[in-house]
């Protein structure tokens, strides 16, 4: 017997959680003497009120889709991959190496190659924790967190000592040649004769992210590997009984997860910065955890949750720019959303379930 209808589970619960998070955010804004209504107006206007705002919102959304999918795939295998941050950073290294290694004649050739580089580096960065978990039982949460720090240190070293162009004071790689610059969504719109989102970073990678959602959906629910990943994630003894190798599934799921996190780099490194810099990931790896949780570990949910966090990110930036609400408060709002939609999920779900059960009994 289902406790409540599916629509209530996937739509109503997150919406109520979100409303609670915004409600408390409003109280906090009130407490520092600002107007929550004004703040919301600024956020909505700044993130969604213009094509300029949308251009940024979609750029952030693209980042969060990749890291959200990464967390989601690992989660289905019962693994909590907190290493998206490091895997995405290494993905950036992969992109930079591929793009700078050859004189690519056109972005359309460079993009698949760079994507492969990004995925490969991200996957390899996830491989070590996966192997340690599968073979030695080292907890993947601990190892992936530690690998985030190792990734940061490694990137620091590589940028300062290896990739920095001679004479540059900036710990960043050389600029990517113009031929590999990815088309921005604004350029593509202009090609169609539409003036949309000038000077915004949203680029063709957005479509790659949407395609990744479809592919992950196929993988998880329509392939044998996905079936085995889900089975292993739900019950390891059952997986053993069925002849599913825990080592194989742990390693494969983490490779895919790391590859997805790494793919984020084609958006931020190749699409936006057009060179590899320090701290390019900017916390997107961690936001991926909230995105996956809120998206109910389904690609469509991940896409929607990524959009929400894209809005929060962009709207938050606007808030800091145009009001005297400090930047830190934006982090508070984001944290409240994560807290309510992710960690406190049952707080909303349980009363809702009771409500629906009571309603059904009355109806019966």
């Amino acid at each position, binding site marked *: *017997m289902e406790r409540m209808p599916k629509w209530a589970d996937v739509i109503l619960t997150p919406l109520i959680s979100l409303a609670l998070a915004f409600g408390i955010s409003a109280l906090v804004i009130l407490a520092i003497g600002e107007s929550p209504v004004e703040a919301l107006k600024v956020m909505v206007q700044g993130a969604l009120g213009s094509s300029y705002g949308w251009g940024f919102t979609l750029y952030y959304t693209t980042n969060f889709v990749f890291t959200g999918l990464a967390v989601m795939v690992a989660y289905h295998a019962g693994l909590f991959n907190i290493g998206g941050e490091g895997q995405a950073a290494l993905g950036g290294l992969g992109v930079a190496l591929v793009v700078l290694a050859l004189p690519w004649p056109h972005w359309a050739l460079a993009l698949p190659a760079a994507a492969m580089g990004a995925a490969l580096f991200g996957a390899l960065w996830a491989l070590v924790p996966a192997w340690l978990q599968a073979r030695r039982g080292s907890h993947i949460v601990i190892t992936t967190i530690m690998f985030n720090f190792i990734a940061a240190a490694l990137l620091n070293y590589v940028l300062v000592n290896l990739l920095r162009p001679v004479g540059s004071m900036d710990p960043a790689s050389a600029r990517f040649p113009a031929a590999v610059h990815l088309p921005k969504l604004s350029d593509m719109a202009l090609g169609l004769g539409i003036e949309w989102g000038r000077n915004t970073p949203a680029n063709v990678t957005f479509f790659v992210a949407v395609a990744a959602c479809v592919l992950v959906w196929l993988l998880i629910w329509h392939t044998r590997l996905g079936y*085995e990943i889900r089975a292993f994630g739900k019950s390891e003894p059952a997986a053993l009984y*069925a002849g599913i190798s825990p080592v194989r599934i742990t390693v494969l799921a983490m490779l895919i997860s790391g590859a997805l996190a790494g793919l984020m780099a084609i958006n931020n490194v190749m699409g936006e910065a057009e060179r590899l810099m320090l701290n390019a990931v900017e916390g997107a790896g961690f936001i991926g955890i909230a995105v996956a949780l809120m998206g109910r570990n389904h690609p469509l949910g991940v896409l929607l949750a990524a959009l929400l966090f894209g809005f929060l990110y962009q709207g938050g930036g606007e808030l800091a720019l145009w009001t005297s609400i400090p930047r830190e408060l934006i982090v508070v709002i984001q944290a409240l959303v994560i807290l309510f939609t992710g960690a406190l999920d049952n707080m909303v779900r349980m009363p809702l379930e009771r409500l629906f059960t009571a309603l059904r009994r009355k109806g019966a």
Partner: protein
Amino acid sequence: MPAAGALHGAPAIELRGISKAFGPVQANKDIDLVVPRGTIHGIIGENGAGKSTLMSILYGFYRPDAGEILIGGKPIAIADSQAAIRAGIGMVFQHFKLVQNFTVLENVILGAEDGGLLRPSLSRARGALKRLASEYGLQVDPDALVEELSVGHQQRVEILKALYRQADILILDEPTGVLTPAEADHLFRILRGLRDEGKTIILITHKLREIMEITDNVSVMRRGEMVASVKTAETGPAQLAELMVGRKVLLRVEKPPARPGAPVLEVRGLRMVDADGVERLRGIDLEIRAGEILGIAGVAGNGQTQLLEVLGGFPEAGAKLQGEIRLNGKPLPLGGAGADGRARRQAGVGHVPEDRQAEGLIMDFTAWENVAFGYHHAPEFQNGMLMDNAAIRADAMGKIQHFDIRPPNPDLAARNFSGGNQQKIVVAREVERNPDLLLIGQPTRGVDIGAIEFIHKRIVALRDAGKAVLLVSVELDEIMALSDRIAVMFDGRIMGERLADEATTGDLGCLMAGVDPALTPPEAAIPPAAAPGTDAGGGAG
């Protein structure tokens, strides 16, 4: 003794019109129950009949939606288990609630300590324990660690806990599931002793034999309702089974005589040492022929689980294996590459595992997804790179019909089926593949009588189709009813083998306790030096 109730006036327990619903499910419907003081009262019913809910209400875990509870003639409200204990009710759960690394004494006072210091409580409890032990034959070493006690002794600790809290009414939930026949007999002696001292005992069980053996009165539940309350002396197993299920039931499995053919499974000198260095299998020799059911009897934990896992291709990680397994004359790898569940299935081994919820099913998967579980590599389930979910679903629909799985909804998650229907999903999946060898562990654990009958028929049908069946069960009745030959496992060895027609409960019980009656004649079994196995068996002391 029903007469005892009349002497003491008000009944120990009286329930009037108890109802309890969980959402749309009416777990208890207008239940009336009268348990006279100083009697043993059996409550039987199929899984999901509402026995556990009713007892949980009595023990304060749930509040009834309607109805009244009277203890000793006085109506009371039982808000929580503390209130139940104050009212003199003690409960012995099926899964013991003991702290493994505490001593018996520490476990007994746990939750009933008085004052900030432990020592006075402990010494008071020591005295009380000594008194209880001599009064009721409940001897347990108060300073032994619980983890070192046999299951039978752990159960005594649970009973002592209840008595230490001055329980007048004891509720026991499926108490014999984990006991050898000898341990069960001893438990029954204790229960009779408690009754004769004036205690009231409620026994929840699904074993008709126990009801007939020990209870004074019996109440039958079906689908949340109390369908009958009768004096045990005035009823019989057939009538009780019919009351439980609501229709006539075959208690004996009807099977034609076996016609064994060529050997299908041959096991020679199989040894297994687990990752902790404990030898779990100590040289197993077995042979099962086509068209034959070999039953493995034994108290849980004597290597049966490991035997099934090794044969099924998934010994626990780090285990060392030795010996030989042949299927239809061809050797099967013991471990390493080529020895996993998938390879075994391809070789023709079907496996209904002992624990369907942890192993046999993915509880969150839908029924149709579970029907492909373990066979998801089968060519008919593939569609190019993708899985052919439509084909799997169609296959599941067929199995749901063949096995009368209810509700017939392939999209329902496995956890939303009853235990019996969950087991039917597993049995359907493994049996319909027509394996040469079927491994089947605890086929009817937690399964209602109607489904038991059905599953037993299917196992016999597979045998009659010329397949080999290895049946592992802790239910001796089931082993005796289904098997053609019976092997008894004790401490990782086969203690002995009997033809099912010639086996007796007493004989098998001795083997289960590690005593070979052929080697130890009855009059020689008494001397202490005779059989080290009796100590390890634990319960007979």
